[in-house]
């Protein structure tokens, strides 16, 4: 029985292989999306799916979209991408950091299919990378957090120790500290992007330890619910999470992928697609700051909005010296700003954060 299935699968694969090489011709462009969580997570994957829907709406029947949810990072991701490529996808968006090597591997086997990997740093002739400068939004959150905490303890639910997450922790801490020199930050690493009960438990552990402002870099809204129950403050992550406004959610970082996705699909249609590295922030609108609610005092809100606008216009950089690394060694001199190379590979905490980054 197994043999028959294998044979059938092999036959199906070899039958569909030649079709992959050809261009899409007059048919619709097929765009595939690989998601790390369910589209109903209310956060990260939800926003990527909003991007897919925007592509579908923008191009109508000129585009065909497919997606697969909850694809584990690792070997299974290669299977999902291969399957999409075999089904004739012209462009495949792989939307989690852990898909980096699988994307590169699969892209090597399908040179005519375009791949777009989110938040990674490995590119190839048919692999682009794109990400958003979430750390710019973290600066605004950090400022509000520093002003709003009464216990002077803020907490951060971190997923995996990768540069993207570390940048967010540093940016939030720097701006919380500027707003409130007495602030301390606790970081909990949960080693998952999506595990609502664990995210809730992490939020409760922070709150039980005296934290009254919770920031999260995980994908579900579970920490929001925990914050609501405990009466502390939180921020929407990746998506607006406005169902938790005005409290506990006092603001949010919204990832707006739609313009990028539309532009990239358009490039495939026009035959102008090239491998590029895109890293946009508040200015171009890839990162949006969700409405700051009335739970935040008017002066703090005005400061936060001024900070947002200064970052957006390029007048202020979220990593501006003087800044030292955690061990006290100098990193940025007075007025110096961090270069993208350092930020992309950021693997250190800034001075003042206690605890160690796991390897």
């Amino acid at each position, binding site marked *: 029985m197994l043999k028959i299935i294998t044979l059938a699968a092999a036959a199906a694969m070899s039958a569909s292989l030649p079709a992959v090489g050809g261009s899409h011709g007059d048919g619709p462009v097929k765009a595939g999306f690989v998601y790390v*969580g*369910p*589209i*109903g*997570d*209310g956060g990260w994957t939800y926003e990527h799916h909003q991007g897919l829907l925007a592509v579908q709406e923008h191009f109508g029947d000129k585009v065909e979209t497919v997606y697969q949810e*909850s694809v584990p990072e690792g070997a299974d991701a290669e299977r999902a991408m291969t399957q999409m490529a075999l089904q004739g996808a012209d462009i495949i968006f792989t939307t989690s950091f852990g898909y980096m090597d699988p994307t590169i591997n699969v892209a090597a086997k399908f040179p005519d299919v375009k791949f777009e990997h989110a938040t990674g740093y490995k590119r190839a002739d048919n692999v682009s990378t794109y990400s958003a400068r979430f750390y710019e939004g973290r600066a605004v959150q950090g400022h509000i957090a520093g002003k709003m905490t009464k216990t002077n303890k803020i*907490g951060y639910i971190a997923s995996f120790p990768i540069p993207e997450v570390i940048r967010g922790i540093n940016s939030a801490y720097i701006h919380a500290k500027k707003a409130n020199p007495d602030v301390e930050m*606790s*970081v*909990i*690493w*949960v*080693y*998952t992007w*999506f*595990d*609502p*009960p*664990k995210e*809730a*438990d*992490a939020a*409760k*552990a*922070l709150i*039980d*330890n*005296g*934290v009254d402002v919770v920031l999260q870099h995980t994908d*579900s*809204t*579970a920490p929001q*619910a*925990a914050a*609501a*129950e405990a009466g502390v403050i939180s921020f929407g992550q990746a998506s607006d999470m406005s*169902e938790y406004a005005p409290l506990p959610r006092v603001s949010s970082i919204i990832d707006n992928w739609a313009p990028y996705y539309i532009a990239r699909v358009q490039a495939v249609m026009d035959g102008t697609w090239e491998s590029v590295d895109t890293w946009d922030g508040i200015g171009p609108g890839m990162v949006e700051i969700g409405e700051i609610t009335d739970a935040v005092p008017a002066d703090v809100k005005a400061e936060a909005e001024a900070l947002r606008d200064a970052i957006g216009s390029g007048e202020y950089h979220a990593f501006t010296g003087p800044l030292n690394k955690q061990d006290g060694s100098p990193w940025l001199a007075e007025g110096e700003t961090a270069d993208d190379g350092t930020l992309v590979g950021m693997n250190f905490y800034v001075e003042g954060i*206690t*605890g*160690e980054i*796991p*390897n």
Partner: protein
Amino acid sequence: MDLGSINPVLLVAALLLASTPILLAAMGELVVEKSGVLNLGVEGMMIVGAVAGFIAAVESGSPALGFLAAAAAAAVLALLFGVLTQVLLSNQVATGLGLTLFGLGISSLMGQGYVGIRPPASPRLELPVLSELPFLGPVLFSQHAMVYLSLAIVVGVWWYLRSTRSGLILRAVGESHEAAHALGYSVLGTRLAAIAFGGALAGLGGACLSLVIVPQWTEGMTAGRGWIALAIVVFGSWRAWRVLLGAYLFGGVSVLQLNLQAAGIAIPVELLSMSPYLITILVLVIISSDKRRAQANAPNSLGRTFHASG
């Protein structure tokens, strides 16, 4: 060791609650496996319980009704597995895996429109006088009702399997279905009842997540807890007390490690993150290390199909 800002009362209260979903699901699976059936669909039954309980609680405004609906919905799903494997004699492993996939899919379908809604609050059960005792009061006598119910179920299952006639029949069916059948006991009836019971408990565990712990509905929110429950049954060598210990160890160390991180204790995070798995497996393997006895405890007919005419 300086525990910094960790409050032991809050910690113990948190770990009792955090362990409850896994404990409930594992107790259900224990009974199912004792009857000789291997149901790998625990994850699917939990998530269906989570969504059904959430919907019922939101629509009726009553958490109690939510829990009832969760148990009922998951039991129905379990009976689907029961009919397929016991009546139509399909492969238990494949059907169980299918049940998990089916459960995850149908739950996200059922949950459309319930994302971002807050369920009615499930109040803690404050036992009069006792809950005001210092330390012990908040820990032992001010928990959510499901914590007490899950402990009552552990005692009930232990007593049922050990001391009742019907429990003896269930074990006999699990040890040797041919012999039980020859003695005139209904293998099919016993197993279907066990499967439904296991489903109901998994459903209660799922509803604990969506109504008390998280509390909200999110697709895929069980995030692998059903598989942990399955593992705990095996490592706990099919004994109710060891399963209880395993569930509390896993839930306890999970909560403890998050608290240690929050308090900034200088233990490497990698070590802390793997500690729930490491410690639970280690302890259960050590207490079950007498190989002969552990094997004697594993149901002999586990996972084997039974056909009366055979």
